[in-house]
């Protein structure tokens, strides 16, 4: 199977990162929800205040994909904070192209992330998985992950821009 290297993403990788983001969203059956652009990724990941960090998996040119790509996997993460235990590493996206699965790329990425977490004094690595994604859940549970939604009852909520704006007009108190 193909050799690969893992490295920190660079500005020139944003086009590939966006391509892989859309592939993962398609798998999660939510492709139309991706509104992020290459320009956003560039500004938000490589500007003065990076909002995320990214690792990419690259294969040599002779092992490029059917449609000519050498960036075949990625993981996007950032640091969050738990008031009970301190710094955490949050894994936002983690994806390997279908034709490159089974050669250990996913495992290596996960190991590298956990090594980063330990090195930066994070107590824990957190992430979310959609409950029907049995393959992913098994992959993580085999490696010692616990499901906090099942074990402790945590539910994820979102509040969209429209409702956020509504709240800002309620700011005054007295």
């Amino acid at each position, binding site marked *: 199977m193909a050799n690969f290297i893992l490295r920190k993403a660079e500005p020139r990788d944003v086009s590939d990162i966006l391509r892989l*983001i859309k592939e993962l969203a398609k798998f999660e059956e*939510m492709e139309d*929800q991706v*509104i*992020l652009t290459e320009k956003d990724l560039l500004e*938000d990941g490589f500007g003065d205040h990076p*909002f*995320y960090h990214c690792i990419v998996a690259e294969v040599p040119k002779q092992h490029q994909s059917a449609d000519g790509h050498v960036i075949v996997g990625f993981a*996007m993460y*950032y*640091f969050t*904070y738990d*008031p*009970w*235990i*301190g*710094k955490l590493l*949050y894994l*936002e*996206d983690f994806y390997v192209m279908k034709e490159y699965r089974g050669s250990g790329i996913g495992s290596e990425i996960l*190991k*590298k992330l*956990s090594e980063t*977490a*330990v090195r930066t004094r*994070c*107590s*824990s*690595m*957190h*992430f*979310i*998985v959609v*409950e029907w994604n049995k393959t992913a859940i098994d992959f*993580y549970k085999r*490696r*010692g*992950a*616990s*499901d*906090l*939604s099942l074990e*402790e*009852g*945590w*539910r*994820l*909520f*979102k*509040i*969209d*821009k*429209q409702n*956020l704006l*509504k709240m*800002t007009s*309620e*700011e005054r*108190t*007295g």
Partner: protein
Amino acid sequence: MKITIRPAKPEDCKDIERMIMELAVYEKMPDQVKISHKELERDGFGPNPFYQCLVAEVPEEHMSKDGQTKVGYALFFYTYSTWKGRTVYMEDLYVMPEYRGKGIGKALMATVAKVAKEKHCVRLQLSVLDWNKPSLDFYLAKGAEDLTAKEGWHFLRFHGIALDNLAQEAP
């Protein structure tokens, strides 16, 4: 009663620690609190803060039964959605029981929303325990959507020994 909502300062960390513990007791997990005001000071006020915090303060004449004037807090940080971009995650929102019903929670949250708007964040996320009906009602009234129910998202983690084991396998 005049209530002030303001960014936290390093000297507020002892009060924030106190309120974090009060919230953990309410969430029935007080033994899970492992950090103190020292870590809060180090991690929230250096050149690279890992969180932002707002404090709700009342004047001295309205201090609590046990003499506190800092009566609520909101702790949040910036995250990133590969679909939408910049997001705010509100990790904790808490108001001491004797100060509820005065709009403090609403004001704290509105200030977080204002910060989110200023930083061009498109969404605010948070998590709630499934039995916590008062909080569920509070957020749903503000337009929150339960993504665990709607889309099936679950929180997972690698913690403690599980994380160390995984890291030790790294080449």
